[in-house]
């Protein structure tokens, strides 16, 4: 039986380490890295999240044989309203360089005019989508939805932390 003790000891140590790592990891996951993150960070994240969901709903409709164009128009209008809020949700000092859990690159504040233009582009493209959807031409609406997606992507490529790396 004496040969049991060594592996058992190793096992107990490994288990203890594993459990410690688990509990240490899970308790700290959702907390912001530093105290008092500006409210705008969460607000803009929720705003973009909602824009993403609305865009998904639009693409979901366009995958159907008979898309619900009223739904597409409503979602495009929602995106339009949210796109107009983007500019105001990026106060100075809320970039990736400021120690917050954010994907907002400092480039946003280095090229403010370009960032403004990029958010305006989403305002314009979503407005176009909303008005086109009323016409019920699936091809045209689909093309405009992709143009609006291009506005999302164009801004992400320039101003959002690339998390594909």
């Amino acid at each position, binding site marked *: *039986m004496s*040969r*049991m003790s060594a*592996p*058992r000891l*190793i*096992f*107990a140590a*490994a*288990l203890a380490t*594993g*459990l410690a*790592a688990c509990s240490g*990891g899970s308790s700290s*996951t959702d907390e912001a890295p530093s105290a008092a993150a500006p409210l705008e960070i969460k607000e803009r994240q929720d705003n973009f999240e909602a824009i*993403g969901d609305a*865009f*998904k*709903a639009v*693409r*979901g409709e366009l*995958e159907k044989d008979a898309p619900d164009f009223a739904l597409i128009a409503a979602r495009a209008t929602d995106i339009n309203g949210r796109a107009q809020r983007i500019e105001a949700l990026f106060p100075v000092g809320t970039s990736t360089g400021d120690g917050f859990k954010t*994907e907002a690159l400092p480039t946003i504040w280095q090229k403010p005019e370009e960032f403004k233009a990029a958010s305006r582009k989403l305002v314009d493209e979503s407005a176009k989508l909303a008005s086109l959807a009323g016409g019920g031409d699936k091809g045209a609406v689909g093309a405009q939805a992709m143009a609006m*997606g291009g506005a*999302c*992507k164009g801004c992400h490529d320039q101003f959002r932390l690339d*998390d*594909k*790396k």
Partner: protein
Amino acid sequence: MPDPAEPAPARLQDVTVWDPLLRLTHWSFPLLIPAMWWTAENSKWALHKRLGLVLLGLLLFRVVWGFVGPETARFSHFVKGPKAVLAYLRSGEGGPAIGHSPLGGWSTIALIGAMLVQVSLGLFAGDPFDGMTGPLNPLVGVMVADTITEVHEAFFWVIAALVGLHLAAITFYAVKGDDLLSPMVGGDRPPMEGVAGIGPMPWVRGLLACGFAGGVALWVAFGAVPLT
């Protein structure tokens, strides 16, 4: 135990329980599962995807190994009916001399199955307009992919619970004096009367199984395009 006064006869040999490839596959899981969790929590999506595909290859290997591997690796050796499981629960008897017990066999199936489900969900997860996507994401619609992504996220807790159960069970057996850890590390357990172990490692079959699993994983990584 032999009488200590008498010189021991030809010393019994340790019994080989688990083959090297099975052990390597097994120990990749406690490395990869936390790594998958960490890369997801920290948005390291390129790494998450790559490690996920490695995990897919390892799981596919384990499944193939369950048919062509040594005795203790084979599903036919350790997947038992409810009667055998109940008998084992009641008396602790009825299992094979080495390898998974009737209950442990089902735990193994649950762990491998849950990991396969999780990795498969990940293949379809994501949104091409918002960061990384799994290699099979284009095969499903955007709303289906959205639902799959949510399930993939929640299913991690099923994996975590099964891993917790697995560790608890090993601890339980360790307290009982049954060391399950050492054989999974070194492959061998102390000698047992009349038990020969799994015999030499079938390296050629091992290599073929690795090649097959790696090939399928690569094929999936490139979007599972039809081969014809």
